């Protein structure tokens, strides 16, 4: 089979059917069914060890699935060797060939496929990442950000049906990462390839991808647009891995007018039925910290707001853009509230008695055991970044 015939100007669909991957001693991917439409920017997001990199390696052909099929552009490539797949990878470590110059690195794939004018095309790709002036240097003479762009050019220049990005921005500092995110996104829309991006950085996934799949323990927990995942998480893991969430246990008492009435230890709250995965019995009510307001006096428990309280402020941390309050409500636990610093300094201080209010359409309902499935706090992004991303 001639790989060159599979290359087109545009990307191709990627389909994973019933993929399972076992390694000696553990299962990296439990079960995976996924369709990524051509031309989309798809992100696989999850903590380390969730199976996202394994998924990428299966698509690249660097690993063989224990079960299931990999289809690219409708063609089964499961048993195809990596060098015969119309796929290119931007590796986490960049994996630039140290014994070749930058231009030789970029032209490598073209030359293996005996594409005409390989060097000219490689220069063109280097211009795309604004690095044509370092074409004759060795990769080791470049900065991390430049190496990353060379790795990107080396992959993009082949116009693969599918471009795989394995945490390519992980080694860059924050400023450079932001810059590269924008560049990657513009390159993707410019060349129209299908991008599959693997990352543990929720902010990166949300900024760049059209569709994000959140992976945990070898499975996809939820798949959707970044907004959808953030505003309407369906599992405790998604709610806590993508930004922060306050999760409050309760019991559904009744359902009326599209609202569930839920009794919690901090008072009765109403949750929209279409934003809840359970409709009766025990439930976990979730709400994002930045969707909450603090009140010094108990607000009226009617209108379109849910009210929890009273509670006591146990911690105030000023982060610049916002202030994070931790409020201890008896029977509920600690609730986190991000308050925009619209006035100078913190309005409340430690020990104050407060009530918490938030709009009903911002709450979401999860399974009762959602609180057990939260993302490992060590793996979750730090609260400050999460707050900014919100």
């Amino acid at each position, binding site marked *: 089979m001639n790989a060159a015939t599979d290359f087109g100007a545009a990307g191709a669909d990627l389909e994973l059917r019933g993929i399972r991957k076992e390694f000696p001693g553990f299962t990296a991917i439990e079960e995976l069914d996924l369709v990524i439409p051509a031309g989309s920017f798809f992100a696989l997001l999850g903590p380390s060890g969730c199976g996202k990199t394994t998924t990428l390696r299966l698509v690249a052909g*660097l690993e063989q699935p224990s079960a299931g099929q990999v289809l690219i552009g409708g063609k089964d490539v499961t048993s195809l060797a990596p*060098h015969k797949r119309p796929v290119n990878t931007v*590796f986490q470590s960049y*994996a630039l060939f140290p*014994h070749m110059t930058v231009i030789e690195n970029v032209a*490598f*794939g073209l030359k293996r496929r005996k594409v005409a004018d390989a060097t000219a095309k490689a220069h063109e790709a280097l211009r795309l990442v604004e690095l044509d002036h370092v074409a004759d240097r060795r990769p080791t003479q470049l900065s991390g950000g430049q190496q990353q762009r060379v790795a990107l050019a080396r992959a993009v220049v082949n116009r693969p049906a599918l471009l795989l990005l394995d945490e390519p921005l992980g080694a860059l500092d924050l400023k450079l990462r932001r810059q590269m995110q924008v560049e990657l996104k513009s390159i993707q829309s410019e060349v129209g390839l299908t991008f599959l991006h693997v990352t543990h950085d929720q902010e990166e996934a949300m900024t760049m991808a059209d569709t994000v799949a959140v992976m945990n323990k070898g499975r996809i927990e939820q798949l959707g647009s970044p907004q959808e995942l953030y505003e309407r998480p369906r599992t405790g893991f998604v709610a806590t891995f993508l930004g922060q969430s306050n999760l409050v246990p309760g019991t559904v008492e009744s359902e009326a007018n599209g609202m569930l009435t839920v009794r919690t230890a901090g008072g009765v709250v109403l949750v929209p039925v279409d934003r809840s995965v359970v409709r009766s019995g025990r439930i976990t009510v979730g709400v994002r910290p930045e969707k909450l307001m603090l009140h010094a006096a108990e607000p009226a428990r009617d209108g379109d707001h849910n009210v929890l309280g009273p509670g006591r402020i146990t911690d105030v941390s000023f982060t610049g853009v916002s202030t994070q309050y931790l409020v201890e409500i008896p029977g509920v636990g600690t609730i986190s509230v991000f308050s925009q610093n619209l006035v100078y300094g913190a309005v409340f201080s430690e020990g104050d008695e407060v009530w918490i209010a938030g709009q009903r359409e911002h709450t979401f309902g999860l399974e009762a055991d959602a609180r057990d499935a939260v993302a490992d706090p060590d793996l979750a992004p730090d609260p400050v970044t999460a707050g900014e991303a919100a």
Partner: protein
Amino acid sequence: MALTALAPAGAGSSGAAPERRRGGLIALALLTPGLAYLALFFLVPFISLLMTSFGINVPDQYGVFDYGFRWENYVDVIAAYWPQFLRSFWFALLATVFALLIGYPIAYYIGVRIRERTLLRNLLLVLVIAPFFISFLLRTLAWKQILSDEGPVVSVLHFIGLMGPQDHITGTAFSVVFGLTYNFIPFMTLPLFATLDRLDKRLLEAGSDLYASPRQTFFRITLPLSLPGIVSGTLLTFIPATGDYVNASQSFLGSSSTAMIGNVIQSKFLITVNYPQAAALSILLMAVIVVIVSVYVRRSGTDDLL
């Protein structure tokens, strides 16, 4: 190597700041034992050898010579022993190539293929070094036994008719090159292993991701990146093999028709005690090796990797 080691000491001691001067003194102190050793056991003998090579034999007196400047010594030894010279480099080259062809797959297997299987890897490494536990003289003698006319190899080859009754293995060029190859395989394998063990496997994955077949990945990525190991392995084999006088000697695997320059030097020094000629041969051998090695290292483009 001595020169590069000296450089930082010299630069440090010439520094103006007292801090740097102290650093330079410490470096010098650390280098002193090594430098003294080199001066005493390398530089002095080398100068002595150089002076001897221009010496004039006293007629009718066995093993006695006067210092002088008889450069014709060099002309004489080249005229008399150029076949042994050529043979030395030819045999050493063959042995180096064979040792590379045998050592590379071993080093690749241990250093790349089974890198993660620590136990097996260490076991195989010990096996590579294991021959060193026995003196190489004994091992070469053992090969002489195995390859001798009464030995199993010749008997079998006679029996199946691959060798005629008058054919031998020992005493031929084949057995000398065989012995050299055998003796230098560990010297080839270990530096190759050291390089291949550090080879970043992710580069191989990147190669296959960029449409290089396993064969292309090997020749375009693995091989060039293991060049430093190839250079040091071939040097560690070629240089001592050129001067080797054991394998080619008649008491071991060789015969008079396989004599290498090492055998000539040995007999000049120890049997015919013609010191000026022996010294001239030694200096000549050293000079030719230095020229060959520097051209080789320059050509392979690894002078910065050595």
